[in-house]
C-alpha cells in the first residue's frame, strides 16, 4: 500500500509564489478581455457590435452625429468574437483578466481615463477583517465554470488557505457572500436567505459575468440580470469564468491587500 504522506512530500512544493513578485501565476497564454483601441476604430463599422452575443458592445450616439462604441466589460463573456470580427484591429486580443472592481462604472470603457482617484477602500473593511476572510459561495445558476475555478482555488497550486481566505459551509460564519450565476428565479429566495443569514458586517462579490450583469444567459423566463437588482455588491469580477488568479486578486482587493487594476474598462499601465 502506498504511503501517501511520503508520496506527497516527494512531489515537492506545488504552490505558486504568486502574488509575491516574480511568482508564476500559472495563466500563461490565457486570453482575457479584448482591449479596445478607439483610435483604430472605423466610423460606421458595426462588426464587433453585431458579433457580440451578450450585447457588451453597442453603438451609441454621442453628442455629435457620429456613433461611438460603448463597451461594458461587465457583460463581456471573453468569447473573442469581436476581435475576430474587427477589420481594423481596434478590438485586440489581450491577456488582461484582472478585472475585479469596486464600482460597476469601472467596467465601462471610457474615452479618457477617469481622473477621479481610484475608489478607496472603506476603512471598516480593514478594521472588520484584519487579514482573514471567510466566504460563503452561492451558485445562483452558473454554468459550473465559475465553480470549477472556485474549487481550483483550494488546489495545491493556488492554495487559498495560505492567504488566510477560507470557504465556510454555513453563512453564519461568513464575511463574504460570493455569488456566481445570473440568479435564476428558483435560486433568488435561497440567495437572499443566505445573505440574510450572514452576520454583519458582510460583503458581496459578484463573480463571473453572469453574476455581474447576466452576461449571455441573463434575462429570459428563468434568469435575472445578476446581482445588481438584488443586493449591494462590493466587488464585481467579470470573466467567463474568471480564472483563479483573477478571483484571488478580487478577494485581496476586497481585503485592501491589493489595489484595483481596472479603470475605465482597461487595466492601468
Amino acid at each position, binding site marked *: 500500500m502506498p504511503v501517501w504522506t511520503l508520496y506527497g512530500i516527494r512531489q515537492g512544493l506545488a504552490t505558486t509564489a504568486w502574488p509575491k513578485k516574480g511568482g508564476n501565476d500559472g495563466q500563461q497564454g490565457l486570453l482575457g478581455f479584448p482591449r479596445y483601441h478607439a483610435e483604430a476604430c472605423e466610423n460606421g463599422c458595426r462588426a464587433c457590435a453585431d458579433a457580440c452575443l451578450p450585447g457588451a458592445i453597442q453603438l451609441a450616439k454621442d453628442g455629435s452625429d457620429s456613433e461611438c462604441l460603448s463597451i461594458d466589460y461587465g457583460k463581456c463573456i471573453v468569447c473573442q468574437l469581436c476581435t475576430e470580427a474587427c477589420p481594423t484591429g481596434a478590438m485586440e486580443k489581450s491577456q488582461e483578466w484582472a478585472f475585479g472592481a469596486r464600482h460597476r462604472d469601472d467596467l465601462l470603457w471610457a474615452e479618457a481615463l477617469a481622473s477621479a482617484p481610484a475608489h478607496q477602500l472603506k476603512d471598516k473593511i480593514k478594521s472588520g477583517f484584519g487579514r482573514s476572510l471567510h466566504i460563503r459561495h*452561492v451558485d445562483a445558476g452558473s454554468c459550473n465554470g465559475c465553480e470549477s475555478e472556485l474549487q481550483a482555488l483550494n488546489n495545491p497550486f493556488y492554495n487559498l488557505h495560505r492567504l488566510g481566505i477560507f470557504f465556510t459551509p454555513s453563512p*453564519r460564519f461568513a464575511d463574504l457572500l460570493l455569488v456566481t450565476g445570473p440568479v435564476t428565479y428558483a435560486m433568488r*429566495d*435561497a*440567495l437572499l*436567505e443566505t445573505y*440574510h*443569514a450572514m452576520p454583519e458586517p458582510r460583503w458581496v462579490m459578484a463573480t463571473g459575468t453572469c453574476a455581474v450583469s447576466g452576461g449571455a444567459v441573463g434575462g429570459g423566463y428563468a434568469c435575472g440580470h445578476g446581482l445588481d437588482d438584488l443586493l449591494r455588491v462590493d466587488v464585481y469580477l467579470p470573466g467567463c469564468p474568471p480564472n483563479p488568479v483573477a478571483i484571488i486578486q478580487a478577494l485581496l482587493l476586497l481585503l485592501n491587500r491589493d489595489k484595483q487594476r481596472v479603470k475605465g474598462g482597461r487595466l492601468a499601465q
Partner: protein
Amino acid sequence: MLSDLLILTAILWVASFVLALIERSGLAARVCLVLGCAAGIVFSIGGLNLGIAPFFFPIHLADASVLFRLDAPAFWLFLFGIIPALLAMALSTSNRSPRPRRYWMAGTALALLGALGVFGLQDALSFLIAWEVMSFGGAVMILAEHVHARASSPTLFMLALLEVGAVALMLALLLLSNQTNMLSFAGFSGLASSPKSFLVGLLLLIGFGAKLGLLPFYEWFPAAYGSGSGATGVIFSGVVLNAAFFGLQRGACTWLPKTGGWSTGLAIVFIVVSVLSAILAILYAFQEEDWRRLLSFSSAENASVAIATLGISLLLSANSHPVLAALAWNVALLHLAGHSLAKGALFLTADGVFHASGEYLICQRGLLRRTSTVFGIGAVFAAMSLAALPPQAGFVSEWYIFQTLFQATQATTLVSRLTLALAAAGLALTAAVALATFVKLFGIGLLGDGYEGPAPISGLRSGAVFVLGLCVLGLAVGMPWWLPSLSTANLSLFGANAAASMRDGLLLVPLSNKFAFISPTKLVIAMPLLSLVPIGLILAGRGAGAPRRAPIWYGGLREKPREIATTSLAFSNALRTFYGFIYGPTHDIAREYHHAPYFVKRLVFNQELAPIFGPYLFTPLVRIVRFLATGIRALQSGYLNFYNALIGILLILILALALLSR
C-alpha cells in the same frame, strides 16, 4: 413527637384509601395523600437527624408482636422517594375522569402504605404482607388509570414477575428464619459464610431484583410503566424502588455474613449481574420513543448501578476494607437519592408532555419555547443529573462511584480486582449511553420549534418540576451537610465512619483530599460569576441597536421546523446499528409503486427491537405453563367416568401399598 407524625402519615394514607373508595369527587382522598406525604417528609427529615424510637403495633402476627422501626438508610431512602411522590399526588394521574382517579389514589395509598411497611416492619411475616400490598397497590394504580387501552396484559406480566420475586423472598426468609426459628429480623444475622448464605443472598437478589429491574426482570418495566401515567412512574421509580433497594441492602449488609469465600462470590455475582443489567437497561432506554418507557429503563439502569455499588461495598467488606465498604454503601444511597428526585421531575415532565399533546411520544414539539422558564430549568436540572453532568446530584454520585472503584484497587484478591476493573468499564459505558439518552430525551422531547399556541403546561406542574429540579441541585450543593446523617449507619453497619471523611469543608472528597475533589457548592457560586462575562458582553453590545434575527438556516430554503425535525430514531439509530447484536433491530420498509417498481408512491416504515429475554426466557416459560395446563386440563374435564377411573386407580394403588407394606 416524630412517632406521632409517622402514625399521622399512616392514618392519612389509610384515610385516603377509604375516602378514595367512597367519596365521589376524590378531593378529600387527594388532600389526605398529599398531607400524608408532607407529614412523611417532616418526620423523615427529623428522623435522619434525631432517629426515632422503635414502635410496637398493638397487633400480633404468628404469636409475635409487630415491631416497627426506621433506621437511617430507611429515613434517607423514604425521604427522597416521598418528596417527588408528594408533588405527583398533588398533580395526580394524567387520566382526568374522576372514577379512575379515585381508584388510582386508592392504589397509590396502598403502595405507599406497603412501602412504609417495607421500610419499617421488622419481621418476616408482616414484611411479606407489606411487600405484597405494595405490589398490589402498584397493579391497582396502572389498571385504574386506563391511560393505555390494554393495560391488563403488562400488569399481569409485572405481577407474574413480581411474584417470582416474592416467592424467592419467601424462600430466603424461610431459610433465614430456619436458623433461629424466629420470624423477627433481629435473629437473622447469625449466618456463617456457606453455600446456604450464598443461596440466601441469591434469593434476596432475585426477590428484590424483580422490583428493582435487574436482568431479566427489567423487561416488565417498559410495558408496565408504559401503560400508566408519569405520576405512577414517580411512585414506582421513587418510593417503591427505594423500598426495594432498602430491603436488599438490609439483607445483604446485616443478615448475610461479611467475610468468607462465599461472601466474596456473592458480591461478585451482585456486581456482574447488576453491571450487565445496567448496560442492557440503558442501551434499551436510549432506543425508546416513549417518555415513560425510556424513563422506566433508566430507572432499572440506576437501580442496577446502585446494586452494583452495593456489590462493591460487599466485596470490599469481604476483603476487609470497612471504610471503603462504607464509602460504597453511602454512594449507593446518594445515587438513589438523586435518582428519585430527578426521575420524579422527568416523570412529571412526561405528564406535561401528555397534557400538551395527548401522547407520550418523544418528538420535537417546541415545548420548551412555549412553557415557562422554570419548567425548563427544572427539566434540564433533572436531565443533567441523570446524564451525570456537574454540578448536579447525579454527577456527584457518579463521580463517587468511580472514585470508589479507583480506591478499591487496594482490594486484595486478583478476582476482586478484576471484577472491579470490569465493573468500572461497564459502568463507564453505562454512563456514556446515559448521557446520550438524556441528551436525546431533552433535545428531542422538549426542544424544537414551529409550534404556536398558549403555554400547554400548567403553572402548578411547571412549579412542581422546578421544585424537584431545585431539589436535585440542592442535594448536590448541600451534600456537605447531608452526608453526616449517614454517619451513625456507617458506624453500626461497617464500624467505620466513611461519611465523615467524604467531605472536607465545602469540598467533596473520596475519603481523603489527596486523591481528588469536587465541590458543587463552590461551583454553583463560581458558575453564575462566569456567566457575568457573556451577560456583560450582551449589555455592552446593546448600544449598537437591537440584534438582527435571521431564521434558522436550512441551506437556503425556509422549512417548517416541525416537518423536518430530527426524530427519536434518527438520533439513536447509529447506536442501534452498532449494537445490533444486542438489540436485534428489525426494519420493515414497504414501498407502494405507481405502475412500475421505479415510481415510488408511498413508503411505509416500521421498526422494532427484540427484547433479549422475552423470546428466550419468558416466552418458553409461558409455553411450558400452557403445555402443562393443557395436560392437566383433563382434571377439570367434568366427566364423571374420568373421575371414577381416577378414584379406581387410587384405590388400587392404596391396596397395592397396603399389601406391599405388610
